[in-house]
């Protein structure tokens, strides 16, 4: 320690309260950052390796029906279309539910558990910005589960035969349908799962609640519609979130379900499913926003 006569005794303490001099990036940048970080978190990027296993494995499994279709095309030379785009989401519905059940609590549960919400809300964002950024991030992540396999199937179908361009042109009307259905289902599942996940800081139980919601509603709706043909049996299918998603998808693709399937037995108009999908997603969004609006630190 050497003493310097130049410095007054109190000087080392007098750092002053300095203001931040750099550029202030504002609300838009803050929201964008939450969105990007949440999107990364949805796949466990920047987390330990164990956090990456489940989301990545689910994306790979979701590609399985498309890979199966292309494998058959490669092995048999014949253009058998066993996997139709309108049916694709039904094949992987439990994988979709598991993805949101695993990752929605990951996006909101940690902030609840660690009480970091006040840190976010003291910045230049509104509370609704936080909730909406999380919602859009999870919905974007879900596009890897919904849109990606459809695109692989579409491109693969074209390249499986020898007539690449005519094939692509013929099934081109599917592209906007794929886009609309994938975005609609992703937003719906993200909204519903986040509305549940935001209620509890225990991530495991949030996951259980989300999966219970999808599985139980699906089974109950299925049991009701299988059991009879009265109107209330047919309306019972609307309890099943899976079937609401499926009905809306069929409506978007303008195809009719198999007469023997649950949707065929229910025989309800397509726009009803789409309207219910939108209504449930809005309800979930309201619940999610309310949860953050009402928060008092």
């Amino acid at each position, binding site marked *: 320690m050497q003493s310097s006569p130049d410095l007054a005794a109190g000087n080392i303490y007098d750092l002053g309260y300095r203001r931040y001099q750099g550029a202030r990036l504002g609300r838009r940048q803050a929201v964008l950052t939450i969105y990007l970080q949440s999107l990364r978190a949805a796949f466990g990027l920047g987390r330990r390796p164990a956090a990456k296993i489940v989301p990545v494995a689910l994306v790979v499994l979701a590609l399985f029906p498309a890979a199966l279709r292309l494998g058959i095309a490669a092995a048999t030379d014949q253009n058998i279309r066993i996997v139709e785009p309108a049916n694709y989401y039904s094949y992987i519905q*439990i994988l979709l539910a598991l993805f949101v059940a695993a990752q929605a609590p990951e996006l909101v549960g940690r902030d609840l558990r660690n009480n970091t919400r006040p840190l976010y809300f003291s910045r230049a964002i509104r509370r609704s910005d936080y909730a909406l950024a999380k919602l859009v991030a999870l919905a974007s992540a879900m596009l890897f589960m919904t849109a990606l396999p459809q695109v692989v199937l579409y491109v693969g179908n074209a390249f499986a035969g020898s007539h690449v361009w005519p094939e692509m042109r013929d099934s081109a009307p599917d592209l906007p349908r794929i886009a609309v259905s994938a975005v609609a289902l992703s937003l719906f599942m993200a909204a519903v799962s986040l509305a549940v996940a935001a209620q509890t800081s*225990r991530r*495991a*139980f949030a996951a259980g609640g989300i999966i219970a919601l999808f599985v*139980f509603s699906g089974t109950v709706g299925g*049991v009701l519609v*299988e059991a*009879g043909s009265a109107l*209330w049996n047919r309306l019972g299918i609307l309890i099943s979130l899976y079937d609401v998603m499926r009905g809306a998808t069929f409506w978007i693709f303008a195809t009719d379900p198999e007469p023997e399937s649950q949707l065929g037995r229910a025989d309800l108009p397509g726009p009803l499913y789409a309207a219910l999908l939108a209504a449930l997603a809005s309800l979930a969004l309201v619940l999610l926003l309310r949860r953050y609006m009402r928060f008092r630190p």
Partner: protein
Amino acid sequence: MNWPVAQLTLRLLLNQKRTVLLAVLALVPVLLAAVFRWGSFEEHPADWASNRLMAQIIVAALLPLAALIFGTAALGSEIDDGTAVYLLAKPIPRWRVVVSKLVVAWLVTVAFVLMATVVAGVLALAGEGHALVVVGFAVAVIAGALAYCTVFLALSVATSRAFLAGLVYVFIWEGLVTGLFEGTRVLSIREYTLGLAGWIASLSPKTFEPELAGGQSLVLLAIVCLVAGWVGVRLLQRFETGESS
């Protein structure tokens, strides 16, 4: 059994929001059975009760979810919260800790699922003369709950993400894979439960036909409980306390 550990575990499991969630889920089959009773269902009661109500809703959904919630929480939430250190520092043999936790998780699971099974079964079948269906599924659910709880408890010592791993086992392995590849059915607790239930209920194969025979299911259930229990004890004996997770 160690009473203080068991009592604390019971409080840990029941004083939570999840109890409400489970009670709501347990009401679902009861409501459905009531709807079946007084609605205009066209299916045969024994057929509907065994295949839909019991197999699809109780054994395939309610039982694994309840066992997952309680089985992973009994020991897993103590490990999560860091209070497992205080438990493991006590001079109680580790196998006693596992057994106490397991028995409580099992009893709580059984309390919820058995209530749903009996009430819903009686509602759907009263006066139809298929009392053995209710008895069969009640016994099978008790045995299945023990197997599920043991597996999930062992899983919760092995990994901090036991709940997610259990979900994947129940809904991807038991739900999807066993449906696609028949040989994997001997590795599914759901199929053991159904096999045991079908054996006791002794319905005609036309009404309800499980994939596994009754005796085979019983032996496999016992093997699963013993192996998973042994693995759980072993993992807990080697568990390093003070590890932050």
